[in-house]
């Protein structure tokens, strides 16, 4: 049944005075087994919540790095069923696992069927970057029925009224997209993110995690000083794309994870 709730994991990190580290990689990247091994290595090195990406043909809010990873995963034949199998394999190791997906693959699978099978695989919920609560009637019903978390996004451009309705629809935690733009590592963390997190906090007691652009322990520490969780994606993908072979990739993932995990614990600095 439904696995460890990612919101509970973020909450317990918060209770111990630090931010949670949330790590993303697409399933099937670079292969099915390789992807499971990388995600498992992330958990072993200190990622608190795993985001398994469902690789999609038209990733319109992803930059070139994650696009490249999705391409590799799709070319290696990754199917929706493989994403669920990845969730199952990683969740078995005891990690909290959520799936990050564009909406059409879920719609195609059947919203309720996807929710049922994700819960059965031990997944905690879904992050839906191109589904806003206004269009999410079917998903809200299915996630309620199967006890899954719903992580919707808020953005710097969201009005207070929209933040209010969006956090009202969230279960688990709230994803604050810290910059306007596509995914990708950035030299500097966003200056608008703290204000956005502040506006979210005024609307909900749920934990607020920040993503888009973080690639180092130093940046993670900065984000951890005002957010409950730090989500990292492109930087992990980059490790794998730049690696010479699988062992090298595993080593690079572990190294980056340790750096970031130390970063999220440096909050009081």
């Amino acid at each position, binding site marked *: 049944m439904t696995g460890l709730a990612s919101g509970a994991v973020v909450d317990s990190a918060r209770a111990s005075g630090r931010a949670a580290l949330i790590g993303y990689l697409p399933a099937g990247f670079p292969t099915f087994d390789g992807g499971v091994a990388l995600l498992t290595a992330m958990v072993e090195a200190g990622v608190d919540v795993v985001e398994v990406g469902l690789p*999609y*043909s*038209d*990733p*319109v*809010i992803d*930059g070139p790095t994650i*696009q490249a990873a999705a391409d590799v995963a*799709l070319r290696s034949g990754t*199917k*929706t069923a493989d994403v669920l199998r990845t969730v199952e394999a990683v969740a078995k190791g005891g990690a909290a696992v959520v799936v990050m997906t564009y*909406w*059409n*693959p*879920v*719609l*195609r*699978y*059947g*919203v309720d069927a996807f929710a049922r099978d994700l819960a059965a695989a031990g997944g905690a919920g879904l992050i839906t*970057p*191109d*589904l*806003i*609560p*206004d*269009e*999410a*009637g*079917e998903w809200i019903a299915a996630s309620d029925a199967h006890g899954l978390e719903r992580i*919707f*996004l*808020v*953005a*710097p*451009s*969201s*009005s207070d009224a*929209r933040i209010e309705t*969006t956090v009202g629809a969230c279960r688990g935690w709230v994803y604050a*997209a810290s910059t*306007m*733009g*596509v995914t990708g590592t950035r030299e500097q963390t966003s200056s608008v993110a703290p204000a956005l997190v502040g506006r979210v906090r005024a609307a909900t007691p749920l934990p607020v995690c920040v993503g888009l652009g973080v690639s180092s322990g130093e940046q993670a520490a900065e984000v951890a000083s005002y957010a409950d969780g730090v989500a990292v994606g492109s930087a992990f993908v980059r490790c794998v794309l730049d690696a010479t072979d699988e062992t090298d990739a595993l080593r690079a993932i572990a190294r980056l994870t340790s750096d970031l995990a130390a970063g999220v614990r440096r909050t009081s600095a």
Partner: protein
Amino acid sequence: MTSPASSGIGRFGPYGGRYVPEALIAALDELAAAYEKARGDEDFQREFRRLLTEYAGRPSLLYDARRLSAELGARILLKREDLNHTGAHKINNVLGQVLLAHRMGKRRVIAETGAGQHGVATATAAALFGLECVVYMGAVDTERQALNVARMRLLGAQVVPVHTGSKTLKDALNEAFRDWVATVDTTHYVIGTVAGPHPFPEMVRDFAAPIGVEARAQCLDLLGRLPDAVIACVGGGSNALGIFTAFVPDTSVRLYGFEAGGEGLDSGRHAATLTGGSPGVLLGAHSYVLQDEDGQTRESHTISAGLDYPGVGPEHAYLHDTGRAVYRPITDAGAMAAFELLCRTEGIIPAIESAHAIAGAREVAGELGPDAVLLVCLSGRGDKDVATAAKWFGLLDESGPIT
């Protein structure tokens, strides 16, 4: 597999909506509000009509194509959108959107383009209004529509070739979308067809609708009655909705949309979204999509760069499901035969997109018989397609293309 409307915003039956990142919602709301205001604003409407008349050259002619009619076996009336400034119906929508963007204080416009007609129209309007313009175009298309790339650059636009995915219209759309997510404060995204998140499908349809309003009046003038059928090609569907919309309430008038059948529906190599696809979400709206069993978008294939898209506007999905309009595929070979026929019978070189509508008219003429009057949207002219057509018909020298 339809998804029930939750908010009901921008829906055509179960289709449409807004499947976009939250980051874009504020901009879409702003655009929807600005458009709603412009719609009822006599000033805006007068300025839009002035641009269409004085700049684009509207009304476009309704041409009684006698020799083509004799060949096809029904009376064919061609709505000559090919005679508009910049050579296609695309200018109508673009003038509306750029006028609106200008009024909203945007300094920069971006667009995607397949055949290059929408990019040229956008570059043209940007020049007219003094706005910065960036056009995204698949690298396959910058090659097969090289003439239009040069036109855009002459007009001062920056053309960005897109090398991801299938390197065609879909990838250009994705790239324009990514630009917009990051620049939405200063930038208006001039979507080139009746697709995308609300309010685009509705807004683009309205800006294209003068085609049908004129054609309906012209038919009544010429014939004293309405045509029996209205025919258009369908890529995203803007010229088709442009000419259909005025006739939708006229239930005696049949509406036909012809999609790009490429190498044939059975081959799997086509761009016939309504006849060969299924409901799904792509580019911010729920509509029909060419997709595999996992909901991954399939690549589309057609000789026509402007129809080479695996999606279609949501209002067409609705007209299709309700049966108000009928959609069928036309193969590359069928379209090119019609292309040649129009050249030889009427001295008109059509866009390859529009040749799909002519090929469709041949089918409909066969079904409705010699007394039928068929109104056909000739959406664009074929200058941009001369190289492709010359290659298809083997008119090129061994030594290379004649340019």
